């Protein structure tokens, strides 16, 4: 191992453990970003050694339903393979023309269906939520940078809910409004992203798996786009006055 790196190796070990913080963390990250292959390899080796820690715990098996839920969330992104060229290659032109005619005939109906049916389904779902006596209806209060924002949160412990917001300005570029439910003794759970229109109004229907613990707090925070692991930004709405 090259000399002069002991100082960095000390930090690299604690970095690999995830425990480096403060100025030392900034300096070490800058050092790694400078392209130090020695430290990068050292961190990698340390992580391999740390694997022994979790191998010390008695293994647990997740419920099979998690795999089903996971595969429901994974989009089928595969592009359909192209058909081999053949003597029938003119058929697509003919069928395409016919299809165009059919599409033209049903286009208006499709547009109406696409435009109104989802909205109708959502209204129906909200009505069903309101019909259920176990659904809670909680006011949301503006907080932090948006004290004038208000909202309502309909929530059923089955994991279905709906949030309405008012007076919440559109999220700045590169940011989003993340919606969280917080159950006792649990991490805040990301349940969706809400967008608002020019008037500051927005809504989001939520359908997630039931939580083990009853949800006690509902919140909306302003987050960098894509941040769904846990809230990091300011809270803009919360179900209890702060």
């Amino acid at each position: 191992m090259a000399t002069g790196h002991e100082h960095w190796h000390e930090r690299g070990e604690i970095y690999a453990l995830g425990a480096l913080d403060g100025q030392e963390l900034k300096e070490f990250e800058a050092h790694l970003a400078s392209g130090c292959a020695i430290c990068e390899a050292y961190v990698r080796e340390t992580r391999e050694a740390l694997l022994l820690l979790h191998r010390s715990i008695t293994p647990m098996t997740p419920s099979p339903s998690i795999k089903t839920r996971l595969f429901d969330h994974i989009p089928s992104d595969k592009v359909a393979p192209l058909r081999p060229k053949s003597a029938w290659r003119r058929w697509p032109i003919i069928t395409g023309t016919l299809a165009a005619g059919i599409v033209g005939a049903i286009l208006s109906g499709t547009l109406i269906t696409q435009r109104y049916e989802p909205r109708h389904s959502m209204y129906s779902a909200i009505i069903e939520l309101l019909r259920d006596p176990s659904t809670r209806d909680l006011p949301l209060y503006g907080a932090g940078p948006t004290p004038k924002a208000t909202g309502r949160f309909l929530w059923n412990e089955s994991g279905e809910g709906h949030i309405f917001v008012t007076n919440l300005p559109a999220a700045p570029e590169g940011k989003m409004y993340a919606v969280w439910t917080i159950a006792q003794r649990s991490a805040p759970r990301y349940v969706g992203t809400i967008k608002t229109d020019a008037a500051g109004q927005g809504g989001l229907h939520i359908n997630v798996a039931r939580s083990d613990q009853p949800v006690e707090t509902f919140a909306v925070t302003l987050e960098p786009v894509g941040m769904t692991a846990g809230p990091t930004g300011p809270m803009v709405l919360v179900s209890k006055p702060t």
Partner: protein
Amino acid sequence: MPADQTIAVHLIQKVANQDRDAFSQLYDRFSSLVFTLAMRMLKVRSDAEDLLQEVFVQIWRQAQSYSVQRGSPEAWIVNIARSRAIDKIRSIRRMERSFVLTDDPARAESSDNVESSAAESEARMAMNSALANLPETQRKVLELAYFDGLTQTEIANRLAEPLGTIKTRMRSGIQRLRDMLGAQAV
């Protein structure tokens, strides 16, 4: 490279091409590992299940970024899981500090439960496990960092020990793990 690691690398490469069958096999190989870690870190089953799902969604989306040069598949997957779990643990602490019923005795109890949970996990450990072979002081700081997401400064505050002492214990503990790993490889 061990045969099972070669198979895992191959599966990740296929997942990078959006192969759902390979993804299913990869899940079967590593879901228990991720779930066990998630349960140890988050302590609540529904949170651990959420984390398991999030980790595999991330694997599905980022499989093309994996290369053997980044470490073994196990280390890569565990690193994703730990990073996300630590984000969640730290967000719980932020929430507790900011608005979630900080005077709620049940929550206060949960945040103080770290050491008792560590004791429970200790009881479950096999006698020849890596953790069981570490001195108590080293094991404790490694557990607080690795499983509970505490930084070196937070551990020093919690244990009321100088930061330098904590660093030394961490490094000694890691060195022992390196030695054990080396001995296993021989």
